């Protein structure tokens, strides 16, 4: 419960009120939590690379099991000052657009978890996400580099 409470606190800080029945909103939560974890917010969720990019099955279960609390923004979790700085940095650098977050999280997985270089990571993203335009991929990659690497 503590972990999902913290997820809700993060979503509140992002001023994002999800509707769990919406496909797009579930994508946003997965990608945001993954990126925040990489950015330094402590979560116990383990993400693996699947077809959609980094994805955590435990987080999905928690989301459905706590649908009401998430949609009503109910949480008693308090974020630290440094966690709030990371969340607001994500808000500033990345939009909550699902396509951007999908690209950003997938690129971040390759560059931070698999420790590939920029070219290799970008090429892998282009292959996995070839249904997005080159411009959108460039945007997602640039924004996540600003968030995580600059």
């Amino acid at each position, binding site marked *: 419960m503590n972990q999902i409470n913290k997820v809700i606190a993060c979503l509140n800080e992002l001023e994002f009120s999800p509707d769990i029945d919406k496909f*797009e909103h579930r994508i946003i939560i997965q990608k945001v939590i993954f990126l925040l974890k990489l950015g330094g917010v402590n979560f116990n969720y383990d993400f693996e690379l699947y077809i959609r990019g980094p994805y955590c099955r435990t987080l999905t279960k928690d989301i459905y099991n706590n649908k009401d609390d998430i949609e009503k923004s109910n949480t008693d979790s308090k974020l630290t000052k440094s966690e709030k700085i990371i969340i607001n940095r994500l808000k500033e650098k990345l939009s909550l657009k699902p396509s951007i977050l999908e690209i950003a999280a997938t690129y971040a997985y390759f560059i931070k978890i698999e420790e590939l270089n920029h070219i290799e990571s970008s090429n892998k993203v282009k292959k996995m996400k070839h249904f997005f335009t080159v411009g959108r991929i460039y945007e997602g990659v640039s924004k996540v580099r600003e968030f995580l690497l600059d």
Partner: protein
Amino acid sequence: MSFYELLEESSVLDSKVFSQIRLLLLAVLEIHDRDGISYRELKAGLNVSDGVLYFNLKELGKMGYIEEEQVNFEEKKLTSYYITEQGKEEWNKIRVWLSKFLKNVGDDKK
């Protein structure tokens, strides 16, 4: 378990699912469970042609193992696929059987 018993046990499995693409589809859809996966993600991830993907999705749908739904994604309509409870049961049976099969005939038996 003996190899003979494994052969006997295989008769309870749905042989129509035993193709690479169908096994991969069930595995991928089981991982994403209620979140579902869109057609375009399946096509890119599994690297198959539209014809192969469409046909096999339809067949798994007819078997009752998967279902589809129209979802919104940034003002676009996408078709998303989900595994059904029946699909999960069949996939689990196959997974358990394959695991026993590989233990029986795998490299560690040599």
